[in-house]
């Protein structure tokens, strides 16, 4: 698998929650060797984003899913729970490999 998927980790401000979420996601991605690269941003960056995956806190994810703007939304409830993050990223990668 040579393709690297582009993920945007975002929250409303693009500053606090998203920064912490990106740190934790990158820990999981590095440990597991997933072909995913993370960028961080706000809602404004989201409007311009043309990558593969959006990772966000769950309340935002519901909003995004409703709007149907993004190909795949990963929704994280507990940012310190690596198992939750890994499970969501696994589901994304499984979908991509179908």
């Amino acid at each position, binding site marked *: 698998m040579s393709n690297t998927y582009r993920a945007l980790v975002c*929250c*409303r*401000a*693009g*500053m*606090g*929650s998203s*920064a*912490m*979420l990106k*740190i*934790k996601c990158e820990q999981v991605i590095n440990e597991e060797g997933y072909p995913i690269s993370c960028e*961080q*941003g*706000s809602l404004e960056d989201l409007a311009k984003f043309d990558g593969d995956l959006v990772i966000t*806190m*769950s*309340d*935002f994810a*519901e*909003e995004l899913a409703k709007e149907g703007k993004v190909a795949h939304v990963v929704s994280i*409830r*507990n*940012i*310190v*729970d690596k198992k939750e993050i890994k499970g969501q990223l696994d589901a994304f990668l499984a979908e991509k490999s179908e």
Partner: protein
Amino acid sequence: MLSDLLDEKSVRVGVAADDWRSAVRASLQPLVDDGAVEVGYVDDAIAGVEEHGPYFVVCPHVALPHARPESGARRAALGVCVLAEPVSFGAGENDPVKFLFPLSATSADGHLGVLADLVNLLSDERFLPALDSAETPSEVVEAIRTIERSI
């Protein structure tokens, strides 16, 4: 390290709050008093939750009240606010919230180091119990230093 940025003046324990709004205001007030953020920043943090849900409730019992840098952040700052009684943010499994870490940054990547430290602290199972048993701001800072040294 996080404890280097943390000023005891921005640490409060046993804070009374009736609901999530008063908890967010109480947590950010020391940053307002200290000139790190304008009142508009506090208003924007609350407006953000009203509009988008509790996006800064990041794990069980923990919130990081913050807003958009352009709403009135003057410089990077971090505080700790431990509530006397937890409040609901409508955050599902992460409710109720007892520990708040009010945060300001003047740019989106202004203090990634501090946030990385905070993630590591939150990932340490000793962290929240240590905050919960601290009775003064200086005990909070000391508890954070002790855990930081051992991570």
